[in-house]
Structure formats: C-alpha cells, structure tokens
C-alpha cells in the first residue's frame, strides 16, 4: 500500500526563527496586561500568545524573538519573580488544520513518541502552531511528516525576511 494514502493531506509547514517563550506564572501578583504593556512599551513583538483564565486569573504564554530577550528581561524586571523564560524555542506551524481533531491528535502523539517537547499550542481558523525546542525543529518536521502528506516539492517555509514596525 502506498504509505502516503494513510497520511493526512495539508498545504504546508512553516518554521519560526529562534524564540523565547515567556510564561506568566499562575497565581502571581502581576497581570498579563502589565506584562504585555511593558513589552509593547519596549517595542517587543509577541509572536504567539496563549492565555486562559480558567484558574480565575488570566495567565499563559507569549513568544518573542530570541534577539529581543535581553531587552525583554530589562522590560520585565519588576515582574521577574512572576515569569519564566524558556529558550531556545522554535515554532512549527501546520496549515490548514481544517478543524481535524485526528490530525492534531496524531501530530501531538508523534511529537511525544519522538521525545520532542511541546511547550505550547496556539491555533487560528486555518493554522496550528506548536512550540518546541528550537534545536529540534528538524526532528519535529520529521515527526509531523510521518503523519501528513505535503504538496509535491514542498519544503517547510523558513523565515527569510520580516516587516518591522517603527
């Protein structure tokens, strides 16, 4: 049997540049508003965000570019006891997910089976983004590629340029 027949078709994969994942710890004395406000004041972009208030206080994660880490540490100094910074982090984005729970389940299982960490998940209507160890992004692509079929000659997109807000 053709192994691609049992794979789930997707449109493509996209990989991030090196990131730092900032987590506002639950039950801290600081709010996410303060954290994001300080990052914005220092013109630091937060590329991926996942927050929830299911413990009655909005908390969660945000990713910044690795090159902004030193600036972020200064910006968040008053919140130092309330946050942790995880690095190196990379993001792999699968698109489109088409709301397929089977696809998400198989990708997460494949990552875990290969011993790859999943630090966070954020999705949109079309894209599913997982954060993992930046040094293992290629291994993450291998794990995901066991599950999905990609268009012919598709190679994961890697960042080549960016738009900067002044």
């Amino acid at each position, binding site marked *: 049997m053709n192994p691609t027949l049992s794979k789930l078709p997707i449109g493509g994969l996209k990989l991030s540049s090196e990131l730092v994942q900032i987590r506002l710890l639950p039950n801290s004395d600081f709010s996410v*508003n303060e954290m994001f406000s300080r990052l*914005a004041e220092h013109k630091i972009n937060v590329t991926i965000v996942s927050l929830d208030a*299911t413990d009655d206080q909005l908390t969660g*994660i945000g990713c910044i570019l690795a090159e902004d880490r030193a600036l972020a540490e200064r910006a968040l100094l008053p919140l130092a006891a309330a946050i942790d910074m995880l690095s190196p982090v990379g993001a792999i984005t699968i698109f489109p997910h088409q709301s397929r*729970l089977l696809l998400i389940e198989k990708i997460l299982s494949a990552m875990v*089976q290969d011993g790859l960490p*999943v*630090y966070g998940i*954020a*999705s949109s209507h079309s894209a599913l983004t997982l954060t993992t160890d930046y040094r293992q992004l290629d291994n993450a692509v291998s794990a995901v590629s066991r599950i999905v079929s990609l268009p012919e000659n598709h190679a994961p997109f890697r960042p080549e340029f960016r738009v900067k807000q002044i």
Partner: protein
Amino acid sequence: METFAVYWEPIIKTYDITERTGLSLISFDLEFNRICDKESWLTKIASRLDGSLILIFSRPALPSGLRLHLLFDRSLKRVEKINSVEDKMQTAQSMDINLDNSDGVFSGLRIDNPVELVYFQGPHYGDRYGIVNAAITVLAERKVPLIAAVCTGASVYLITPAGKAREAKNALGQAFSTPKTGKSEPKK
C-alpha cells in the same frame, strides 16, 4: 534575517472584527506520558461533543504536560454553572456529555458553556509589537472580562463569557480601525 520593510500606522488597522456566540470551551490537563501509547485519545474525548473545533490552544502545566483548551462551535446543552472540578466532571458525565476518559489521559476538566468569541486580523500582525496589548488593554479599561486569548500569525482571538462579545467588539471598534469606521487617526 533581513528586514526590508517597515510599517507604521497611527491607529491599528483591522480587516474587520467578527463575533460568534453559542460556543463551548473545554479545558483539561493533559499528561504527555498518558498519550504516548494511546490511539484516538483526542477524538475519543471529543466524540460526544456535537460541533466542530474552532480553536485549540494551551499553556504548560506541571509536571509534564499542557493545560489544553478546545473551543467548539456549538454550546453544550444542559451544562450549568458549577464550582469544583469534581462537580464539573460528575456533571459532565451525568449530563450525557460523557467525555471519554477511559484512557485516563486528562484531569481537571472544566467546561465553560456557553462562551463567545471575538476575533480579528490585520496587516503584518505577526511582525508587529503592541497588537495584543492594545486589545487586552481596551477590554480591561471597559471592564469586559476575558476567559482566554490566542494569537498566532495575523489573527487575534478573544474568548469572553456569554453576553460579552458584543461589548468586546464595540470596545475594540473604538480602539482599532475597521473598514466600517475607517478611522485613520487616534481618538482625541
């Protein structure tokens, strides 16, 4: 990496702000070592939910796993507001929702139902600072409660309690430029 473009606008532009009502948010702690050798763990959990997935998002949860959230496009029937996690689990099961946890892959089940969603996209959001800050700041100023927020790429999703999406949308419409308002200058 090369940066060859810069971007600035006096008021943050959106392509539009959309609201959706009558949704349900399912949250639970997922231990990675429990899904390693399990098949269909997620599809089994969701098998009794009548609806399509809109969003999935998570944050780390100790010791080794994620606090996972699934937003579905239909509200669950007959789930009432309850307080403790144990009560929620019991009620979820007794209300014929029957989230299948026969593999024991999740704990700490919480169901927020119904909930509402407000979402928007805008130019180069993934590369620009201050977008999510602007959104949660204006909602905090207007005292619109948030259950969750998710951003990836050029999209921002804000989940509110029932009856709050319209308020959130109106507040965001005052702070952001939309095709309808067409504002290009900050409000004085």
